[in-house]
């Protein structure tokens, strides 16, 4: 176990390094000069040159990257070009919101996806099965922007059940989390359905039935628990992707999360902020995957890391 953990951590570090290298190279390959964006329209060539050297942009790309990495290792992500504030402050101001939306989104995904997938599997090839799968398909393919506006219009604007976007109380998180749940729930339903179908035909399920256990007990204790394995890795992935920010849902619901920050930064090529968001989301994805892997043995004693 210990050896496995060390290997995985080492892999994670390599992945993180790779992500920063690629993003850095891509951003600086853009035909946009950050110094000129900062200097503005009335700036003379002198001013632009001065700002460029102040930011270290006159150095070669490897040198710039090495400097960036050196600062990164000391926890310094630099200052936002546009907002003139530490990137760590910007990220910190958005972490809590991102975290709550992640929790809420995953909760709704499970709440919607698991029962739907189980039902579908147990009533295989019935009208119930096909309508659940159709529903899952619609949920996955509906554009989140439209779903979000639809929810806001009816549940918040017309019926006044929820606030019209924003952040602060538990009531604020329900709609954006539900919007995430609709899309993700569709995936979960499909995965859960096929996992259940797999498991139901296994010997141990037959054995459980033969022991004379009640059907609900067979399903819940023996089938579902084993069918949850792929779901767990999906949750792991979702922890990562949601912590990296969900751009569309956050924008529609005025949710002050990391995705919104990323979207604004991309539009104005605010490189330090984009890099900061990438580092945070890469870290989140790596961590989420690691958590999922560590959860396997706990769910399925057959799995063991040596």
């Amino acid at each position: 176990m210990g050896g496995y953990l060390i290997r995985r951590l080492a892999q994670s570090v390599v992945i993180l390094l790779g992500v920063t290298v690629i993003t850095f190279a891509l951003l600086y390959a853009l035909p946009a000069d950050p110094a000129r964006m900062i200097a503005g329209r009335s700036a003379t060539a002198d001013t632009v040159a001065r700002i460029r050297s102040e930011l270290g942009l006159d150095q070669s790309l490897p040198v710039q990257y090495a400097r960036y990495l050196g600062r990164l290792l000391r926890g310094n992500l630099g200052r936002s070009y546009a907002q003139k504030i530490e990137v760590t402050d910007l990220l910190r101001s958005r972490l809590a919101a991102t975290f709550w939306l992640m929790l809420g989104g995953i909760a709704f995904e499970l709440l919607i996806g698991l029962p739907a997938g189980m039902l579908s599997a147990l009533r295989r090839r019935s009208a119930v099965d096909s309508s659940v799968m159709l529903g899952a398909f619609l949920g996955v393919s509906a554009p989140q922007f439209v779903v979000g506006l639809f929810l806001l219009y009816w549940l918040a604007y017309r019926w006044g059940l929820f606030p019209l976007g924003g952040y602060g109380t538990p009531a604020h998180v329900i709609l954006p989390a539900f919007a995430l749940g609709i899309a993700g729930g569709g995936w979960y339903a499909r995965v859960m359905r096929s996992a259940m179908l797999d498991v139901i035909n296994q010997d141990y399920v037959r054995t459980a039935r033969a022991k004379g256990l009640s059907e609900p007990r067979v399903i819940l204790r023996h089938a579902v628990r084993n069918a949850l394995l792929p779901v767990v890795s999906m949750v792991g992935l979702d922890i990562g992707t949601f912590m990296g920010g969900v751009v569309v849902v956050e924008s529609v619901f005025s949710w002050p999360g990391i995705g919104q920050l990323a979207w604004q930064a991309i539009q104005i090529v605010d490189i330090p902020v984009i890099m900061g968001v990438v580092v945070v989301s890469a870290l989140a994805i790596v961590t989420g995957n690691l958590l999922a892997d560590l959860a396997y043995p706990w769910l399925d004693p057959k799995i063991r890391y040596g």
Partner: protein
Amino acid sequence: MRQRWMGLAVLVGLALLVSPVAPTWGQNRGNAMTVTFKDDISTLDPAIGYDWQNWSIIKSIFDGLMDYEPGTTTLVPHLAESFTVSPDGKTYTFKLRRGVKFHNGREVTAADVRYSLERTLNPKTQSPGAGFFGDIAGVKEFTDGKAKEVSGVKIPDKYTVVFTLSKANAAFLHIMALNFAYVVPKEEIEKAGADFGHKPVGSGAYKVKEWVLGQRLVLVRNSDYFIKGRPYLDEIVFQVGVEPNVAFLKLQRGEVDILGDGVPPAEFTKVMNDTKLRTLVAVGDQLQTGYVTINTQVKPFTDVRVRRALNMAVDKQRIIRIINNRAVPAVQVLPPLMPGYDKEYKGYVFDVVQAKKLLAEAGYPNGFSTVLYANNTDPNPRIAQAIQQDLAAIGVKAELKTLAQSTVIEAGGTKGQAPLVWSGGMAWIADYPDPNDFYWPILSCSSLSQGTWNWAWYCNPRVEKMVEEADAMVQSNQAAARDAKYREIYRLVMQDAPWIPIFHEKRYTMHTARMGGPPGLFNDPIHIPVHYTEVRLVQ
């Protein structure tokens, strides 16, 4: 599907549980106003802030020597009580008002005016506005580090500031009204360091009460403001990160008062045809021209006949229909609100036959191929397509390159790269209401170097000389003659046809019925979206 409905039932149940305890989501605001923005508010440091959003907010926290009468482009002394201009236009003497206090209680003095300007000019500040002050004597020596102070700024006593210019500039008073010249207290800057932009302390009508990054900025009334009775409001709340369509719903629910990003395009027609909603929209002009630059250094646009032919080929009315008639056609460089705008000038009339004839004369009877750059945010690609179609009608095949804003700016500013650029969505907004602001940065010979905003790469030394003469006409009794001169200048520019002026956008500011004050405040040419110090609740 049953499970789905159960999910929904749980959701509604939860909502019902929450709603009795939930507030009415902010309808009770007292004497406060709420403004929504899609994007975060960036720095509020007057030396640095340079986008349309923070520009007006900075104006409500800080003050400059000069300002404008609310709702107009008329200059008035502000922190200055009075000023005099020497006969040669090179010396400006400002007398400060006494007893004006910074938010920290200290009096504003002449030394603060000088300190603030030198701070903007200091390369360490990285101010995007430093270039506006190049006409003050000694600025170059100061920014090059050869002088410790700017020799052209003198403070003979506590309440007097004297500026000496190396070259007369009729727009100097406008430049003194720019945020970059606003007065800041040295001690607070030393205290906050680089974070001053997020902990601003000025002398203005409002103070910062609370700033939650990514969520809201709250300004509170400065009860010691030097203009009695201002501001009217106790508080202004800026909600950021609000999607414009959602903001629109919030406004109809009475939760917010001003749509900072305007009416969402998809709702515009509905709003303007709705008798009730229509009354909530203030319509006005703005200091804006949308144009296509024709690169005068790229073949075949080196030939003025080709540039004129392009000017005749574009159907501006059709383009305006694309943006729901939110503009009026443009025939010249300056917008109608700008002094020097030429009411008589008709420009190039839409005439495909004449355009083709001109092209044939220039040696292109069958047209040619070229490239049109445009920003990739709506409605700009649609506008660019309309222009592309119009050009095709005279045989000019323009390939479209719709790209991110920064990429287009880079292409436009690179010599010989972009033949045609559509200016929409490029953050171009007038800095101050003087006709020379449309010349120096975007049409002058002196702006021609890598990274220029003169994307037509236009240079006419004769015109440049006339602009210099016009800018030397600094006395107030010369204003009319100067305007006439500018009309002549811009007629000459249009003869050279470096641009295809397309339209002047109108501004539509949507606000709740509880907001009041003269209608001009909702379309103030300087303050966008509204004049924060002057707006008030309906009595």
